[in-house]
């Protein structure tokens, strides 16, 4: 699947938030979106998925404008993984994951054996089968985030959209989430768009990166060309040092924030 945004522009009231944004993601690619707090990263995700309307510009899926897809059709191809927040009612993990089948079922239809099987497979893929009967309200942030990923996988999507999936998690859980995203892209060719606060995470899993600046402009391209010491300085007002090193013949990146500029 090819997912493209062409010249997207959006403003809240009169304040421009996103200005002339273009991006493109193909099957198996991971695009990471970086930017300071409050710059409109979540707004960008919502606009590109049609949850908010672009004021100018458009989103295309496989060359066809987003609006030409029916809601059901659209959400069978794209699955959204929001930040883990609990709702008022305590569903079990399994009930929560089965909800992911919604876009495949008719309005009055109940999930069937097949849907429950798909939900179980999704939980297995996310490695959380052991949480099956645990209540979402009794989970840690990391567990709940994995449940939401499993719910998105139950959609059987071509693309996953993550809104800061690893913030508020400890490092083990961060690694689990990041590895899962990369693995899904490599093995199942599910593309991903990921909002993140961490340049190092973007370098770890991203093929492409998009940086949103305060003035609504953006830079985008291959991750190692976009995330540089000078671009970080420009966007975050922070001098960073980007360090790459080999550990057991594998290349890793580290982005160390040094001081404010």
């Amino acid at each position: 699947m090819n997912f493209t945004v062409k010249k997207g522009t959006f403003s809240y009231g009169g304040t421009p938030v996103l200005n002339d944004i273009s991006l493109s993601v193909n099957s198996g690619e991971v695009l990471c979106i970086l930017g300071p707090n409050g710059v409109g990263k979540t707004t960008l995700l919502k606009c590109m998925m049609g949850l908010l309307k672009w004021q100018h510009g458009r989103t295309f899926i496989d060359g066809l404008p987003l609006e030409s897809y029916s809601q059901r059709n659209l959400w069978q191809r794209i699955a959204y993984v929001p930040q883990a927040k609990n709702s008022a009612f305590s569903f079990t993990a399994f009930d929560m994951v089965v909800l992911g089948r919604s876009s495949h079922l008719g309005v009055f239809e109940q999930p069937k054996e097949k849907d429950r099987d798909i939900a179980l497979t999704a939980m297995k893929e996310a490695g959380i089968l052991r949480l099956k009967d645990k209540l979402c309200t009794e989970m840690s942030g990391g567990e709940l985030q994995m449940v939401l990923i499993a719910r998105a996988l139950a959609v059987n999507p071509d693309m996953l959209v993550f809104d800061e999936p690893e913030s508020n998690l400890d490092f083990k859980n961060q690694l689990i989430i990041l590895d899962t995203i990369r693995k899904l892209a490599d093995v199942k060719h599910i593309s991903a768009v990921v909002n993140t606060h961490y340049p190092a995470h973007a370098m770890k899993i991203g093929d492409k990166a998009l940086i949103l600046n305060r003035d609504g402009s953006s830079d985008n391209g291959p991750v190692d060309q976009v995330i540089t010491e000078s671009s970080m300085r420009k966007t975050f007002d922070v001098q960073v040092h980007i360090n790459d090193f080999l550990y057991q013949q594998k290349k890793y990146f580290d982005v160390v924030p040094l001081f404010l500029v």
Partner: protein
Amino acid sequence: MIKKKIPRHILSAGLVVLPFITALICIGFGRYSLSLPDTVRILLYGINSGKVSAVEKSVIFSVRLPRIILAAGVGAGLSCAGAAFQGLFSNPLATPDTLGVASGASFGAVLALLFHGNLITVQVLALFFGLLSCAITYNIGKLHGRSSIIMVVLGGMVVSALFQACVSLVKYTADPENELPSITYWLMGSMSGAGYNTLLLGLPFIFLGTMIIYALRWRLNILSLNEDEAHSMGMNLQIMRLTVIVASSLITASAVSMCGSIGWVGLLVPHMARMLMGSNNRTVIPVSISLGATFVLIIDTFARSATAAEIPISILTAVIGAPFFIILLKKTGGVWT
């Protein structure tokens, strides 16, 4: 939760049978007391043409049966509407009154009583003002073409306050000798007015609303997620919400028009259902319907047979319901938190 211990088909069968058995037992209670075999004999009178006296016939068929049907229908409906509102607002404290529907319907009915309207007028006005208040609430809640849950709840509070003021105004202007007592009594809720005419006018709406919510029960889970999440499940949220709101309002307004406002049921029963079976609305809705019918049947039987004079049902639901609810809360710690 007892979910795991009971196989699904036994549970479903139990849920269907429970209100019927309760009804069968409750129908024997009262001044003219009947044993269970007698009750069954009289009820089957048309089929096996056994010996049944005129008194027995009139007690069972003209007095108690419509009242039993009314109690079961209203209990099932209000509980179902309560569960639906709670899912819709993802707020465990939402009740059929949240949208101001109960107050609106009460105002309509009270207005009809003030002008000595007949049964049909009471029902039509209750329905009309119930749906009107629902429409007002929905429009207050709509901002920039989208309806936000918190605005709907606030709108409901405002509309509810408005119609309660209107009810007070009607009470204030009512003749204290004969209109005011009947209005006050009616506001506290009573099934004593039950007759087949009442049922024929109100019950189909309750049935329709309940069926709609029952059919959408799994989708209610999605409605209780946050807006964008729910949207990303590929549902038309506006239409789905409107459908659930209208169905629930229909139930509430017809219940109010038939037997006045009955508090607590819409809050208490869905919570009992959740505490027993977990929060998945796929089970919460049918369990609420069954328990709601049973609960109101028992309460109403108590209301009409515990003392010589009839006790208004809202007093009973509060007096019995509140402590029971507190015990349940303390015991389970409230599973939704």
